[in-house]
């Protein structure tokens, strides 16, 4: 069989897996929705969650699509499409593919035509994400029980404990924004973008107070994310023109 990284066969098997995962999302959605109604939650609040999550997802989804395109030059479309729709993340897939390629003496700079190299890359990308899929079913319940036992001992501390967990994650990623500062003025671009987006979030909060529009608050995160991304364009131009 002549190998082609964009073959119909690859599209078919990839589509099957993607449809399976889409089905899982729908099943969990329906289950959560029913449970929400059972608990007597306001349907409006549920709808708002769906609406704001959908809007929020658009920009990151296009960034992920950009990752698919970047990897497609070497690997064709089906494999990167699968890897970035299911489990993968932008940072992981590109690194895994590059590491696998170099391990078998290939590079991602050109199209992979040797099926043995292609399958080596496919195996490494698949095996690299196994831990999460094994550990969630194995340990998920125990971790949850651990957290709820902290909560049942002292509910206020339980809440503070979870806030600490969020803040740990948020501070790690905010710290990451400063990783390029050593490169000089252009390395500050991410810091300026972060500040711009933070200011937009504060403005959303103030607007919500002044004009009393609740929807602004519900869409504040997508608005600030998109606004920050949009502002990064003039910020980058400005900084680059100053830095020369």
């Amino acid at each position: 069989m002549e190998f082609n990284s964009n073959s119909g066969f690859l599209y078919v098997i990839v589509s099957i897996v993607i449809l399976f995962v889409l089905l899982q999302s729908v099943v969990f959605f329906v289950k959560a929705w029913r449970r929400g109604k059972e608990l007597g939650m306001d349907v409006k609040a549920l709808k708002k969650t769906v609406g704001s999550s959908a809007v929020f997802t658009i920009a990151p989804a296009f960034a992920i699509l950009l990752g698919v395109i970047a990897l497609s030059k070497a690997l064709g479309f089906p494999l990167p499409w699968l890897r970035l729709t299911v489990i993968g993340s932008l940072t992981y897939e590109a690194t895994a593919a590059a590491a696998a390629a170099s391990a078998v003496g290939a590079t991602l700079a050109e199209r992979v035509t040797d099926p043995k190299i292609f399958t080596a890359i496919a195996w490494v990308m698949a095996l690299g994400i196994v831990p999460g899929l094994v550990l969630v079913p194995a340990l998920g319940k125990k971790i949850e029980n651990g957290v709820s036992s902290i909560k049942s001992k002292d509910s206020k501390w339980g809440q503070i404990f979870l806030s600490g967990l969020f803040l740990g994650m948020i501070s790690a990623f905010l710290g990451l924004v400063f990783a390029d500062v050593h490169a000089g003025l252009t390395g500050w671009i991410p810091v300026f973008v972060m500040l711009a987006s933070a200011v937009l979030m504060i403005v959303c909060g103030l607007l919500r107070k002044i004009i009393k529009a609740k929807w602004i608050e519900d869409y504040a995160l997508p608005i600030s994310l998109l606004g920050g991304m949009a502002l990064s364009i003039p910020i980058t131009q400005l900084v680059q023109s100053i830095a020369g």
Partner: protein
Amino acid sequence: MKNDISYRDSVHRIGRVWILSALAMLIAVPVAICLYYRAWPSIGGVLKGMLSIAPIFWTVGVIEVFTYVPMLGTGGSYLGFVTGNLANLKVPCALNSMDRAGVQPGTEEGEVISTLAIATSSIITTLIIALGVLLLSQIAPVIESEALQPAFANILPALFGALGVVFISKDWKIAIAPLAVMITLFLLIPSLASAVGVLVPVGALIAIGVARVLYKAGMLDEKTAPVEPMD
């Protein structure tokens, strides 16, 4: 209460079936490609590839389970770990949705909101990428255009800048120490950027440690007012 437990148990049951099936399908893909093209890679090559990524990615994978499962809840975890893009999409989406809905993670209501947010986000992502691959010739010139590259390069700062305002303003007393440590760390050792996942629990331990001290000293007694108090 009995009902609560049985609901969670039922999510665990179906969650395990779905996540293990997803794992089987994921492994089946390279198997199918190898069988169809009769091209098995050299075991040495795959091992060598694994050796260069597994130490970091498996460590991060283990850490992600311990840090994100308490945030995402039962249904959210089974779904989020299958659909991926956790730190850059699913976790911020779930945290923000729970905050907006005024529900706590780990509660029944938090469970519902988090699962709905992650399911919606997964469905939209899948659709956008599928449409993008289908309509690629029309879309590629736009999203690959030089002018838009800064926007995609800065998605994480734009996301965490906004998210930071929401969560830091609520618990600023707990946030200061981990923030200061993380910023200093990245300023001193920029190469840590490739292992940010490993630093998430470090930040969390610092935050939780500081919170414990402040809590015991009675300094967290009155809940810090959010930036925009509900009227």
